[in-house]
Protein backbone atom coordinates (compact mmCIF):
# COMPACT_ATOMS: atom_id res chain seq x y z
CA UNK A 1 0.00 0.00 0.00
CA UNK A 2 1.25 3.43 -0.92
CA UNK A 3 1.16 6.08 1.75
CA UNK A 4 0.63 9.51 0.21
CA UNK A 5 2.62 12.10 2.11
CA UNK A 6 1.97 15.05 -0.16
CA UNK A 7 -1.41 15.83 1.39
CA UNK A 8 -1.31 18.45 4.14
CA UNK A 9 2.48 18.20 4.11
CA UNK A 10 2.87 21.51 5.96
CA UNK A 11 0.49 20.61 8.79
CA UNK A 12 0.97 16.88 9.26
CA UNK A 13 3.02 15.30 12.00
CA UNK A 14 5.14 12.87 10.09
CA UNK A 15 6.23 10.46 12.74
CA UNK A 16 3.75 7.73 11.81
CA UNK A 17 5.39 4.36 11.54
CA UNK A 18 2.58 1.86 12.09
CA UNK A 19 0.20 2.71 9.27
CA UNK A 20 1.08 0.82 6.12
CA UNK A 21 3.00 -1.87 8.02
CA UNK A 22 1.61 -5.39 8.14
CA UNK A 23 0.99 -6.66 11.67
CA UNK A 24 -0.35 -10.12 12.49
CA UNK A 25 -3.64 -10.19 14.35
CA UNK A 26 -3.08 -11.35 17.90
CA UNK A 27 -6.08 -13.68 17.92
CA UNK A 28 -5.65 -15.51 14.62
CA UNK A 29 -3.21 -18.21 15.83
CA UNK A 30 -6.00 -19.32 18.18
CA UNK A 31 -8.52 -19.25 15.35
CA UNK A 32 -6.55 -21.42 12.94
CA UNK A 33 -5.70 -24.03 15.58
CA UNK A 34 -9.24 -24.21 16.96
CA UNK A 35 -8.00 -23.05 20.38
CA UNK A 36 -9.83 -19.72 20.60
CA UNK A 37 -12.34 -20.11 23.43
CA UNK A 38 -15.78 -18.83 22.43
CA UNK A 39 -18.36 -18.59 25.20
CA UNK A 40 -20.05 -21.86 24.25
CA UNK A 41 -16.73 -23.70 24.50
CA UNK A 42 -17.05 -23.50 28.29
CA UNK A 43 -18.66 -26.53 29.75
CA UNK A 44 -19.41 -27.07 33.45
CA UNK A 45 -20.55 -30.22 35.22
CA UNK A 46 -24.24 -30.06 36.08
CA UNK A 47 -24.94 -27.28 33.63
CA UNK A 48 -28.60 -26.45 33.04
CA UNK A 49 -30.09 -25.41 29.71
CA UNK A 50 -32.41 -22.45 29.43
CA UNK A 51 -35.18 -22.28 26.84
CA UNK A 52 -37.57 -19.40 26.39
CA UNK A 53 -41.31 -19.59 25.92
CA UNK A 54 -42.06 -16.88 23.38
CA UNK A 55 -45.14 -14.98 22.32
CA UNK A 56 -46.88 -16.33 19.22
CA UNK A 57 -48.74 -13.01 18.90
CA UNK A 58 -47.68 -9.55 17.78
CA UNK A 59 -49.73 -7.84 20.46
CA UNK A 60 -51.74 -9.50 23.21
CA UNK A 61 -52.79 -9.18 26.80
CA UNK A 62 -51.66 -12.06 28.99
CA UNK A 63 -54.66 -13.29 30.95
CA UNK A 64 -52.83 -16.05 32.76
CA UNK A 65 -49.72 -18.21 32.72
CA UNK A 66 -49.83 -21.83 33.85
CA UNK A 67 -46.42 -23.43 34.36
CA UNK A 68 -47.59 -26.43 36.43
CA UNK A 69 -47.25 -29.02 33.65
CA UNK A 70 -43.85 -27.70 32.64
CA UNK A 71 -42.62 -27.86 36.23
CA UNK A 72 -43.58 -31.53 36.43
CA UNK A 73 -41.73 -32.42 33.24
CA UNK A 74 -38.79 -34.78 33.94
CA UNK A 75 -35.50 -32.90 34.11
CA UNK A 76 -37.00 -29.49 34.77
CA UNK A 77 -35.30 -27.67 37.63
CA UNK A 78 -36.84 -24.20 37.59
CA UNK A 79 -39.38 -22.15 35.69
CA UNK A 80 -39.08 -18.36 35.76
CA UNK A 81 -41.73 -15.73 35.12
CA UNK A 82 -41.79 -11.93 35.37
CA UNK A 83 -42.33 -11.99 39.12
CA UNK A 84 -38.94 -13.67 39.61
CA UNK A 85 -37.05 -10.79 38.02
CA UNK A 86 -36.10 -8.16 40.64
CA UNK A 87 -36.23 -5.13 38.30
CA UNK A 88 -38.18 -6.47 35.34
CA UNK A 89 -38.76 -3.28 33.34
CA UNK A 90 -35.55 -1.83 31.93
CA UNK A 91 -34.02 0.00 29.02
CA UNK A 92 -30.41 -0.32 27.93
CA UNK A 93 -29.53 3.36 27.65
CA UNK A 94 -30.79 4.20 31.13
CA UNK A 95 -27.09 4.01 32.02
CA UNK A 96 -26.63 7.30 30.20
CA UNK A 97 -29.91 8.71 31.51
CA UNK A 98 -31.88 7.91 28.34
CA UNK A 99 -35.31 6.67 29.45
CA UNK A 100 -38.03 5.75 30.03
CA UNK A 101 -37.56 2.12 30.98
CA UNK A 102 -39.90 0.46 28.49
CA UNK A 103 -38.99 -3.22 28.04
CA UNK A 104 -39.65 -6.28 30.17
CA UNK A 105 -37.08 -9.02 30.74
CA UNK A 106 -39.98 -11.50 30.89
CA UNK A 107 -43.37 -10.29 29.65
CA UNK A 108 -45.65 -8.95 32.35
CA UNK A 109 -49.33 -8.50 31.53
CA UNK A 110 -48.73 -7.92 27.83
CA UNK A 111 -46.66 -8.94 24.83
CA UNK A 112 -45.82 -6.37 22.18
CA UNK A 113 -44.10 -8.39 19.47
CA UNK A 114 -44.12 -11.94 18.11
CA UNK A 115 -41.21 -13.70 19.76
CA UNK A 116 -41.16 -11.73 23.00
CA UNK A 117 -39.80 -13.70 25.98
CA UNK A 118 -42.55 -14.76 28.40
CA UNK A 119 -41.34 -17.70 30.51
CA UNK A 120 -37.85 -19.18 30.99
CA UNK A 121 -37.47 -22.93 31.57
CA UNK A 122 -34.31 -24.41 33.10
CA UNK A 123 -33.71 -28.13 32.72
CA UNK A 124 -31.02 -30.78 32.90
CA UNK A 125 -30.89 -31.18 29.12
CA UNK A 126 -31.64 -28.99 26.17
CA UNK A 127 -34.29 -31.44 25.07
CA UNK A 128 -36.06 -31.49 28.45
CA UNK A 129 -36.05 -27.68 28.49
CA UNK A 130 -37.56 -27.60 25.02
CA UNK A 131 -40.23 -30.17 25.77
CA UNK A 132 -41.17 -28.47 29.04
CA UNK A 133 -41.32 -25.05 27.38
CA UNK A 134 -43.91 -26.49 25.02
CA UNK A 135 -46.05 -27.39 28.05
CA UNK A 136 -46.28 -23.87 29.45
CA UNK A 137 -49.82 -22.59 28.91
CA UNK A 138 -50.28 -18.90 28.33
CA UNK A 139 -53.78 -17.52 27.86
CA UNK A 140 -53.67 -14.53 25.51
CA UNK A 141 -56.26 -11.97 24.53
CA UNK A 142 -55.08 -10.86 21.10
CA UNK A 143 -55.01 -7.10 20.59
CA UNK A 144 -54.94 -5.09 17.37
CA UNK A 145 -51.37 -4.51 16.20
CA UNK A 146 -49.63 -1.97 14.00
CA UNK A 147 -46.73 -2.77 11.66
CA UNK A 148 -46.32 0.33 9.57
CA UNK A 149 -44.65 3.50 10.85
CA UNK A 150 -47.00 5.94 9.17
CA UNK A 151 -50.00 3.94 10.42
CA UNK A 152 -48.52 3.93 13.92
CA UNK A 153 -48.29 7.72 13.95
CA UNK A 154 -51.92 8.23 12.93
CA UNK A 155 -54.38 9.23 15.65
CA UNK A 156 -56.28 6.21 16.98
CA UNK A 157 -53.53 3.70 16.09
CA UNK A 158 -53.13 0.87 18.61
CA UNK A 159 -50.79 1.99 21.38
CA UNK A 160 -47.71 -0.22 21.19
CA UNK A 161 -45.86 0.66 24.37
CA UNK A 162 -47.58 2.18 27.39
CA UNK A 163 -44.30 3.28 28.90
CA UNK A 164 -44.10 5.87 26.14
CA UNK A 165 -47.79 6.77 25.96
CA UNK A 166 -47.59 7.44 22.22
CA UNK A 167 -46.08 5.60 19.27
CA UNK A 168 -42.98 7.72 19.03
CA UNK A 169 -40.03 8.48 21.24
CA UNK A 170 -40.35 11.81 23.01
CA UNK A 171 -37.01 13.60 22.79
CA UNK A 172 -36.24 16.66 24.83
CA UNK A 173 -36.67 18.47 21.50
CA UNK A 174 -40.21 17.05 21.15
CA UNK A 175 -41.69 14.32 18.98
CA UNK A 176 -38.60 14.16 16.79
CA UNK A 177 -34.94 15.15 16.63
CA UNK A 178 -34.60 18.43 14.82
CA UNK A 179 -31.91 20.35 12.98
CA UNK A 180 -32.71 23.93 11.95
CA UNK A 181 -30.23 26.03 10.01
CA UNK A 182 -30.87 29.08 7.84
CA UNK A 183 -34.29 29.51 6.22
CA UNK A 184 -35.17 26.42 4.25
CA UNK A 185 -38.35 27.81 2.65
CA UNK A 186 -36.50 30.89 1.39
CA UNK A 187 -33.84 28.52 0.04
CA UNK A 188 -36.43 26.54 -1.93
CA UNK A 189 -38.03 29.76 -3.18
CA UNK A 190 -34.72 30.88 -4.67
CA UNK A 191 -33.71 27.48 -6.11
CA UNK A 192 -33.58 26.76 -9.84
CA UNK A 193 -34.83 23.19 -9.30
CA UNK A 194 -36.47 21.25 -6.49
CA UNK A 195 -36.32 17.47 -6.15
CA UNK A 196 -38.25 15.54 -3.54
CA UNK A 197 -37.80 11.77 -3.29
CA UNK A 198 -38.53 9.14 -0.71
CA UNK A 199 -36.40 6.13 0.13
CA UNK A 200 -37.10 3.16 2.33
CA UNK A 201 -35.40 0.08 3.67
CA UNK A 202 -36.34 -3.25 5.20
CA UNK A 203 -35.01 -4.61 8.50
CA UNK A 204 -31.75 -6.50 8.06
CA UNK A 205 -30.59 -9.39 10.23
CA UNK A 206 -26.89 -9.52 11.11
CA UNK A 207 -26.79 -13.33 10.95
CA UNK A 208 -23.52 -13.82 12.85
CA UNK A 209 -22.10 -17.31 12.42
CA UNK A 210 -22.08 -17.80 16.20
CA UNK A 211 -25.52 -17.27 17.72
CA UNK A 212 -26.13 -15.02 20.73
CA UNK A 213 -25.71 -16.57 24.15
CA UNK A 214 -23.92 -16.93 27.45
CA UNK A 215 -22.76 -19.52 29.96
CA UNK A 216 -22.98 -18.65 33.67
CA UNK A 217 -21.15 -20.35 36.51
CA UNK A 218 -21.97 -19.63 40.16
CA UNK A 219 -18.68 -19.12 42.00
CA UNK A 220 -19.90 -19.36 45.60
CA UNK A 221 -20.11 -16.25 47.81
CA UNK A 222 -23.08 -15.26 45.63
CA UNK A 223 -20.69 -14.30 42.84
CA UNK A 224 -21.31 -15.27 39.22
CA UNK A 225 -19.00 -15.60 36.24
CA UNK A 226 -20.75 -14.98 32.96
CA UNK A 227 -19.01 -16.04 29.74
CA UNK A 228 -20.74 -14.09 27.04
CA UNK A 229 -20.42 -12.98 23.45
CA UNK A 230 -21.77 -9.53 24.17
CA UNK A 231 -20.29 -6.72 22.12
CA UNK A 232 -21.04 -4.27 24.92
CA UNK A 233 -19.41 -5.66 28.04
CA UNK A 234 -20.02 -2.79 30.41
CA UNK A 235 -23.53 -2.01 29.17
CA UNK A 236 -24.28 -5.64 29.87
CA UNK A 237 -22.60 -5.73 33.25
CA UNK A 238 -24.24 -2.53 34.47
CA UNK A 239 -27.70 -3.31 33.11
CA UNK A 240 -27.54 -6.80 34.59
CA UNK A 241 -26.66 -5.22 37.89
CA UNK A 242 -29.77 -3.03 37.67
CA UNK A 243 -32.10 -5.79 36.46
CA UNK A 244 -30.97 -8.26 39.13
CA UNK A 245 -30.47 -5.56 41.79
CA UNK A 246 -27.03 -6.98 42.48
CA UNK A 247 -23.88 -4.96 42.96
CA UNK A 248 -21.50 -5.16 40.00
CA UNK A 249 -18.86 -6.63 42.29
CA UNK A 250 -20.90 -9.86 42.36
CA UNK A 251 -20.80 -10.12 38.60
CA UNK A 252 -17.72 -11.23 36.73
CA UNK A 253 -18.10 -10.96 32.98
CA UNK A 254 -15.71 -12.72 30.61
CA UNK A 255 -15.98 -11.83 26.96
CA UNK A 256 -14.12 -10.20 24.17
CA UNK A 257 -14.36 -13.16 21.84
CA UNK A 258 -17.36 -12.76 19.59
CA UNK A 259 -18.14 -15.08 16.69
CA UNK A 260 -19.43 -12.28 14.52
CA UNK A 261 -21.67 -9.54 15.83
CA UNK A 262 -21.96 -6.58 13.48
CA UNK A 263 -23.84 -4.72 16.20
CA UNK A 264 -26.29 -7.55 16.78
CA UNK A 265 -24.83 -8.44 20.16
CA UNK A 266 -25.01 -5.11 21.95
CA UNK A 267 -28.42 -5.59 23.54
CA UNK A 268 -28.70 -6.90 27.08
CA UNK A 269 -30.99 -9.89 26.51
CA UNK A 270 -29.52 -13.26 27.49
CA UNK A 271 -27.22 -12.50 30.43
CA UNK A 272 -29.61 -11.21 33.13
CA UNK A 273 -32.02 -14.12 32.86
CA UNK A 274 -29.25 -16.73 32.68
CA UNK A 275 -27.56 -15.29 35.76
CA UNK A 276 -30.90 -15.18 37.56
CA UNK A 277 -31.37 -18.86 36.68
CA UNK A 278 -27.92 -19.69 38.07
CA UNK A 279 -28.64 -17.69 41.21
CA UNK A 280 -31.98 -19.35 41.89
CA UNK A 281 -30.78 -22.90 41.16
CA UNK A 282 -27.18 -22.65 42.35
CA UNK A 283 -26.10 -24.36 39.11
CA UNK A 284 -24.30 -23.35 35.93
CA UNK A 285 -26.67 -22.26 33.17
CA UNK A 286 -26.28 -21.89 29.45
CA UNK A 287 -28.65 -19.91 27.29
CA UNK A 288 -27.86 -20.05 23.59
CA UNK A 289 -30.10 -18.87 20.78
CA UNK A 290 -30.93 -21.49 18.19
CA UNK A 291 -30.30 -20.36 14.63
CA UNK A 292 -34.04 -19.84 14.26
CA UNK A 293 -34.10 -17.56 17.31
CA UNK A 294 -31.07 -15.69 16.05
CA UNK A 295 -32.86 -14.93 12.79
CA UNK A 296 -36.26 -14.12 14.29
CA UNK A 297 -35.66 -12.83 17.81
CA UNK A 298 -32.40 -10.89 17.78
CA UNK A 299 -32.82 -7.20 16.98
CA UNK A 300 -32.33 -6.36 13.31
CA UNK A 301 -31.23 -3.10 11.76
CA UNK A 302 -34.29 -0.83 11.80
CA UNK A 303 -36.46 -0.38 8.77
CA UNK A 304 -36.22 3.27 7.77
CA UNK A 305 -38.06 5.72 5.61
CA UNK A 306 -36.33 8.90 4.46
CA UNK A 307 -37.94 11.75 2.52
CA UNK A 308 -35.44 14.21 1.08
CA UNK A 309 -36.32 17.49 -0.58
CA UNK A 310 -33.45 19.46 -2.11
CA UNK A 311 -33.26 22.85 -3.78
CA UNK A 312 -30.39 23.13 -6.25
CA UNK A 313 -28.99 25.85 -8.53
CA UNK A 314 -28.07 25.35 -12.19
CA UNK A 315 -24.41 25.90 -11.26
CA UNK A 316 -24.52 22.90 -8.91
CA UNK A 317 -24.90 24.50 -5.47
CA UNK A 318 -27.41 22.86 -3.15
CA UNK A 319 -29.17 25.76 -1.45
CA UNK A 320 -31.78 24.03 0.68
CA UNK A 321 -32.36 20.58 2.11
CA UNK A 322 -35.36 19.30 4.06
CA UNK A 323 -35.33 15.74 5.38
CA UNK A 324 -37.91 13.74 7.31
CA UNK A 325 -36.63 10.42 8.61
CA UNK A 326 -38.54 7.59 10.28
CA UNK A 327 -36.84 4.77 12.18
CA UNK A 328 -38.88 1.68 13.04
CA UNK A 329 -37.88 0.82 16.61
CA UNK A 330 -40.26 -2.12 16.79
CA UNK A 331 -41.90 -2.58 20.18
CA UNK A 332 -39.08 -1.32 22.41
CA UNK A 333 -36.43 1.39 22.35
CA UNK A 334 -33.17 -0.54 22.77
CA UNK A 335 -30.75 1.64 20.74
CA UNK A 336 -33.24 3.06 18.24
CA UNK A 337 -33.85 6.54 19.72
CA UNK A 338 -30.11 6.98 19.39
CA UNK A 339 -30.15 5.65 15.82
CA UNK A 340 -32.84 8.11 14.79
CA UNK A 341 -30.92 10.91 16.46
CA UNK A 342 -27.76 10.00 14.57
CA UNK A 343 -29.78 10.28 11.36
CA UNK A 344 -30.70 13.86 12.22
CA UNK A 345 -27.05 14.73 12.61
CA UNK A 346 -26.13 12.94 9.42
CA UNK A 347 -28.67 14.06 6.81
CA UNK A 348 -26.95 17.31 5.87
CA UNK A 349 -24.34 14.92 4.46
CA UNK A 350 -20.70 15.92 4.10
CA UNK A 351 -21.92 18.93 2.17
CA UNK A 352 -22.12 22.62 2.89
CA UNK A 353 -25.75 23.64 2.53
CA UNK A 354 -26.87 27.07 3.79
CA UNK A 355 -30.49 26.16 4.62
CA UNK A 356 -31.31 22.88 6.33
CA UNK A 357 -34.38 21.50 8.09
CA UNK A 358 -34.37 17.97 9.50
CA UNK A 359 -36.89 15.97 11.54
CA UNK A 360 -36.22 12.35 12.52
CA UNK A 361 -38.76 10.19 14.31
CA UNK A 362 -38.19 7.03 16.31
CA UNK A 363 -41.48 5.14 15.87
CA UNK A 364 -42.88 2.17 17.85
CA UNK A 365 -44.65 -0.67 16.04
CA UNK A 366 -45.49 -4.27 16.99
CA UNK A 367 -42.44 -5.57 15.16
CA UNK A 368 -39.25 -7.16 16.48
CA UNK A 369 -37.32 -4.47 18.39
CA UNK A 370 -34.57 -3.16 16.18
CA UNK A 371 -31.21 -1.98 17.45
CA UNK A 372 -27.59 -1.50 16.54
CA UNK A 373 -26.10 -2.67 13.27
CA UNK A 374 -23.02 -1.32 11.51
CA UNK A 375 -23.53 2.42 11.40
CA UNK A 376 -27.23 2.13 12.17
CA UNK A 377 -29.09 5.38 11.74
CA UNK A 378 -26.68 6.64 9.11
CA UNK A 379 -26.08 3.81 6.63
CA UNK A 380 -29.54 3.81 5.06
CA UNK A 381 -29.36 7.61 5.24
CA UNK A 382 -26.12 7.58 3.27
CA UNK A 383 -27.64 5.33 0.66
CA UNK A 384 -30.59 7.71 0.32
CA UNK A 385 -28.42 10.85 0.34
CA UNK A 386 -25.98 9.64 -2.28
CA UNK A 387 -28.71 8.31 -4.59
CA UNK A 388 -30.32 11.71 -4.18
CA UNK A 389 -27.00 13.41 -5.05
CA UNK A 390 -26.79 11.40 -8.28
CA UNK A 391 -30.37 12.32 -9.14
CA UNK A 392 -29.69 16.00 -8.48
CA UNK A 393 -26.60 15.93 -10.69
CA UNK A 394 -28.59 14.29 -13.46
CA UNK A 395 -31.36 16.87 -13.05
CA UNK A 396 -29.01 19.76 -13.77
CA UNK A 397 -26.95 17.84 -16.32
CA UNK A 398 -23.76 17.82 -14.30
CA UNK A 399 -21.15 15.12 -13.73
CA UNK A 400 -22.07 13.50 -10.37
CA UNK A 401 -18.53 13.61 -9.02
CA UNK A 402 -17.98 17.24 -10.02
CA UNK A 403 -21.35 18.02 -8.41
CA UNK A 404 -20.02 16.63 -5.14
CA UNK A 405 -16.82 18.69 -5.37
CA UNK A 406 -18.96 21.83 -5.59
CA UNK A 407 -20.86 20.94 -2.41
CA UNK A 408 -18.21 19.13 -0.37
CA UNK A 409 -17.50 20.73 2.98
CA UNK A 410 -14.07 22.21 3.56
CA UNK A 411 -12.30 23.52 6.62
CA UNK A 412 -14.00 26.55 8.07
CA UNK A 413 -17.41 25.86 6.50
CA UNK A 414 -20.28 26.09 8.99
CA UNK A 415 -22.17 22.81 9.31
CA UNK A 416 -25.93 22.71 9.82
CA UNK A 417 -25.35 21.83 13.48
CA UNK A 418 -23.39 25.06 13.90
CA UNK A 419 -20.05 23.36 14.27
CA UNK A 420 -17.34 24.77 12.03
CA UNK A 421 -15.74 22.09 9.88
CA UNK A 422 -12.26 21.06 10.95
CA UNK A 423 -9.85 18.54 9.51
CA UNK A 424 -11.97 17.76 6.44
CA UNK A 425 -10.35 15.62 3.75
CA UNK A 426 -13.31 14.88 1.51
CA UNK A 427 -11.90 16.81 -1.45
CA UNK A 428 -8.68 14.80 -1.29
CA UNK A 429 -10.55 11.50 -0.96
CA UNK A 430 -12.61 12.34 -4.03
CA UNK A 431 -9.47 13.32 -5.96
CA UNK A 432 -7.94 9.93 -5.15
CA UNK A 433 -11.20 8.18 -5.97
CA UNK A 434 -11.40 9.95 -9.30
CA UNK A 435 -7.89 8.72 -10.17
CA UNK A 436 -8.49 5.22 -8.88
CA UNK A 437 -11.80 4.87 -10.71
CA UNK A 438 -10.47 6.53 -13.85
CA UNK A 439 -13.29 9.03 -13.63
CA UNK A 440 -11.73 12.33 -14.74
CA UNK A 441 -12.99 15.62 -13.35
CA UNK A 442 -12.16 19.16 -14.46
CA UNK A 443 -8.69 20.44 -13.54
CA UNK A 444 -10.10 23.10 -11.20
CA UNK A 445 -11.51 20.34 -8.93
CA UNK A 446 -8.16 18.55 -8.92
CA UNK A 447 -6.60 21.82 -7.76
CA UNK A 448 -8.98 22.21 -4.81
CA UNK A 449 -8.05 21.44 -1.19
CA UNK A 450 -10.10 20.82 1.95
CA UNK A 451 -7.49 22.66 3.92
CA UNK A 452 -7.80 26.40 4.04
CA UNK A 453 -5.09 28.42 5.68
CA UNK A 454 -6.47 30.27 8.66
CA UNK A 455 -9.74 28.32 8.62
Amino acid at each position, binding site marked *: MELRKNYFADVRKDDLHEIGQPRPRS*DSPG*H*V*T*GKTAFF*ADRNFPGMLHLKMVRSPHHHARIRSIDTSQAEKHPGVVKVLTAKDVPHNVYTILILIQIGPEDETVLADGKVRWKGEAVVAVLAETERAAQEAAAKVKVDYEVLPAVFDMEEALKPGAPLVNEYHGQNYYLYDSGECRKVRFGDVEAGFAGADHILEQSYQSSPIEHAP*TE*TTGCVVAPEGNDRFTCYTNTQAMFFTLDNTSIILQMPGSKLHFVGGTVGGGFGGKVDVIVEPIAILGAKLTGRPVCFIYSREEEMQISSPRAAEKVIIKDGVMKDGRIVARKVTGYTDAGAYSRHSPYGAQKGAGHYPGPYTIPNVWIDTYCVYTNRTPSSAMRGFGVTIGDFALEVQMDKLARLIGMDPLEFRFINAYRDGDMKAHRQPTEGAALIECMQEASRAANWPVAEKFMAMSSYRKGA
Partner: protein
Amino acid sequence: MAKVPVQFTLNGSEKAEFIDSGTTLLNALRDKIGDTSPKGGCHQGTCGACSVIIDGELRLSCLTLAETCNRAAITTTSGLAEGGVLHPLQRAFLDTFATQCGFCTPGMIMAAKVLLDHTPDPSRDEVVEALSGNICRCTGYEPIIQAVLTAARANSQNAA
Protein backbone atom coordinates in the same frame (compact mmCIF):
# COMPACT_ATOMS: atom_id res chain seq x y z
CA MET B 1 -32.16 -42.62 27.65
CA ALA B 2 -30.22 -45.57 26.24
CA LYS B 3 -26.45 -45.23 26.41
CA VAL B 4 -24.44 -46.68 23.57
CA PRO B 5 -20.71 -47.32 23.47
CA VAL B 6 -18.72 -45.64 20.71
CA GLN B 7 -15.07 -46.03 19.90
CA PHE B 8 -13.14 -44.05 17.34
CA THR B 9 -9.84 -42.36 16.85
CA LEU B 10 -9.78 -38.60 17.14
CA ASN B 11 -6.76 -36.96 15.59
CA GLY B 12 -4.93 -40.26 15.96
CA SER B 13 -5.77 -41.03 19.57
CA GLU B 14 -8.23 -43.67 20.76
CA LYS B 15 -11.50 -42.49 22.29
CA ALA B 16 -14.14 -44.66 23.94
CA GLU B 17 -17.33 -43.15 25.35
CA PHE B 18 -20.82 -44.11 26.45
CA ILE B 19 -23.14 -41.59 24.93
CA ASP B 20 -26.90 -41.04 24.85
CA SER B 21 -28.32 -42.57 21.74
CA GLY B 22 -29.16 -39.76 19.32
CA THR B 23 -26.29 -37.49 20.37
CA THR B 24 -24.73 -35.68 17.43
CA LEU B 25 -21.04 -36.11 16.80
CA LEU B 26 -20.72 -32.34 17.26
CA ASN B 27 -22.12 -32.49 20.80
CA ALA B 28 -20.18 -35.65 21.62
CA LEU B 29 -16.89 -34.07 20.54
CA ARG B 30 -17.55 -30.78 22.27
CA ASP B 31 -19.33 -31.79 25.47
CA LYS B 32 -18.05 -35.31 26.16
CA ILE B 33 -14.58 -35.42 24.67
CA GLY B 34 -13.69 -31.76 25.06
CA ASP B 35 -12.61 -30.99 21.51
CA THR B 36 -14.34 -27.66 20.96
CA SER B 37 -12.67 -26.89 17.66
CA PRO B 38 -15.76 -27.86 15.63
CA LYS B 39 -18.28 -25.04 16.14
CA GLY B 40 -22.07 -25.11 16.21
CA GLY B 41 -23.43 -22.29 14.10
CA CYS B 42 -26.78 -23.60 12.91
CA HIS B 43 -27.12 -27.23 14.06
CA GLN B 44 -29.01 -27.87 10.86
CA GLY B 45 -26.41 -28.51 8.22
CA THR B 46 -26.29 -25.12 6.56
CA CYS B 47 -23.26 -23.21 7.88
CA GLY B 48 -20.36 -25.68 7.78
CA ALA B 49 -18.83 -24.45 11.06
CA CYS B 50 -19.03 -27.99 12.48
CA SER B 51 -17.22 -29.65 9.56
CA VAL B 52 -14.89 -32.53 10.45
CA ILE B 53 -13.18 -35.23 8.44
CA ILE B 54 -14.44 -38.78 8.93
CA ASP B 55 -12.47 -41.51 7.19
CA GLY B 56 -11.15 -39.01 4.70
CA GLU B 57 -14.54 -37.48 3.85
CA LEU B 58 -15.80 -34.04 4.78
CA ARG B 59 -18.81 -34.38 7.10
CA LEU B 60 -21.09 -32.07 9.03
CA SER B 61 -20.77 -33.21 12.63
CA CYS B 62 -24.10 -31.57 13.58
CA LEU B 63 -25.91 -33.95 11.21
CA THR B 64 -23.85 -37.03 12.07
CA LEU B 65 -24.91 -39.25 14.97
CA ALA B 66 -21.96 -40.11 17.17
CA GLU B 67 -23.09 -43.73 17.37
CA THR B 68 -22.60 -44.12 13.60
CA CYS B 69 -18.90 -43.27 13.95
CA ASN B 70 -17.81 -46.53 15.53
CA ARG B 71 -14.28 -47.46 14.48
CA ALA B 72 -14.01 -44.32 12.34
CA ALA B 73 -10.97 -42.07 12.05
CA ILE B 74 -11.99 -38.50 12.81
CA THR B 75 -9.89 -35.41 12.20
CA THR B 76 -10.64 -31.94 13.55
CA THR B 77 -8.80 -28.66 13.23
CA SER B 78 -7.35 -29.00 16.72
CA GLY B 79 -5.40 -32.05 15.52
CA LEU B 80 -3.86 -30.47 12.47
CA ALA B 81 -0.71 -28.85 13.84
CA GLU B 82 2.00 -31.41 14.38
CA GLY B 83 4.54 -30.98 17.14
CA GLY B 84 3.63 -27.33 17.43
CA VAL B 85 4.21 -26.73 13.70
CA LEU B 86 1.22 -25.33 11.88
CA HIS B 87 -0.22 -27.19 8.92
CA PRO B 88 0.35 -25.29 5.65
CA LEU B 89 -3.35 -24.44 5.56
CA GLN B 90 -3.21 -22.95 9.05
CA ARG B 91 -0.10 -20.99 8.10
CA ALA B 92 -1.78 -19.73 4.95
CA PHE B 93 -4.96 -18.66 6.81
CA LEU B 94 -2.73 -16.63 9.13
CA ASP B 95 -0.65 -15.11 6.36
CA THR B 96 -3.47 -14.11 4.02
CA PHE B 97 -5.66 -12.58 6.75
CA ALA B 98 -8.33 -15.20 6.16
CA THR B 99 -9.78 -15.07 9.68
CA GLN B 100 -11.65 -12.35 11.47
CA CYS B 101 -13.87 -13.58 14.29
CA GLY B 102 -12.53 -17.08 13.65
CA PHE B 103 -15.80 -18.90 14.21
CA CYS B 104 -15.99 -20.33 10.70
CA THR B 105 -12.25 -20.95 10.49
CA PRO B 106 -12.00 -24.53 11.80
CA GLY B 107 -14.77 -25.65 9.44
CA MET B 108 -13.20 -23.80 6.53
CA ILE B 109 -9.84 -25.42 7.20
CA MET B 110 -11.42 -28.89 7.29
CA ALA B 111 -13.20 -28.31 3.98
CA ALA B 112 -9.98 -27.00 2.45
CA LYS B 113 -7.98 -29.96 3.77
CA VAL B 114 -10.26 -32.51 2.15
CA LEU B 115 -9.96 -30.62 -1.11
CA LEU B 116 -6.16 -30.53 -1.00
CA ASP B 117 -5.96 -34.18 0.08
CA HIS B 118 -7.85 -35.17 -3.07
CA THR B 119 -6.76 -32.34 -5.38
CA PRO B 120 -3.31 -31.06 -4.40
CA ASP B 121 -3.26 -28.38 -7.09
CA PRO B 122 -6.83 -27.08 -7.35
CA SER B 123 -8.09 -24.36 -9.66
CA ARG B 124 -9.74 -21.31 -8.16
CA ASP B 125 -13.13 -22.69 -9.20
CA GLU B 126 -12.42 -25.95 -7.43
CA VAL B 127 -11.56 -24.05 -4.26
CA VAL B 128 -14.78 -22.04 -4.48
CA GLU B 129 -16.76 -25.22 -5.01
CA ALA B 130 -15.06 -26.95 -2.08
CA LEU B 131 -15.80 -24.07 0.30
CA SER B 132 -19.35 -23.53 -0.90
CA GLY B 133 -20.85 -25.35 2.09
CA ASN B 134 -19.13 -23.06 4.61
CA ILE B 135 -20.53 -19.69 5.55
CA CYS B 136 -18.30 -16.85 6.69
CA ARG B 137 -20.03 -13.65 7.77
CA CYS B 138 -16.94 -11.55 8.51
CA THR B 139 -14.00 -12.04 6.23
CA GLY B 140 -15.43 -12.06 2.75
CA TYR B 141 -14.47 -15.16 0.82
CA GLU B 142 -11.59 -13.79 -1.23
CA PRO B 143 -8.86 -13.99 1.47
CA ILE B 144 -10.06 -17.50 2.34
CA ILE B 145 -9.82 -18.61 -1.28
CA GLN B 146 -6.36 -17.04 -1.43
CA ALA B 147 -5.36 -18.95 1.73
CA VAL B 148 -6.32 -22.27 0.19
CA LEU B 149 -4.51 -21.49 -3.07
CA THR B 150 -1.45 -20.33 -1.11
CA ALA B 151 -1.43 -23.55 0.92
CA ALA B 152 -1.74 -25.58 -2.26
CA ARG B 153 1.28 -23.78 -3.71
CA ALA B 154 3.26 -24.34 -0.50
CA ASN B 155 2.38 -28.04 -0.68
CA SER B 156 3.50 -28.43 -4.25
CA GLN B 157 6.75 -26.61 -3.49
CA ASN B 158 7.40 -28.97 -0.59
CA ALA B 159 6.69 -31.93 -2.83
CA ALA B 160 8.98 -30.67 -5.58
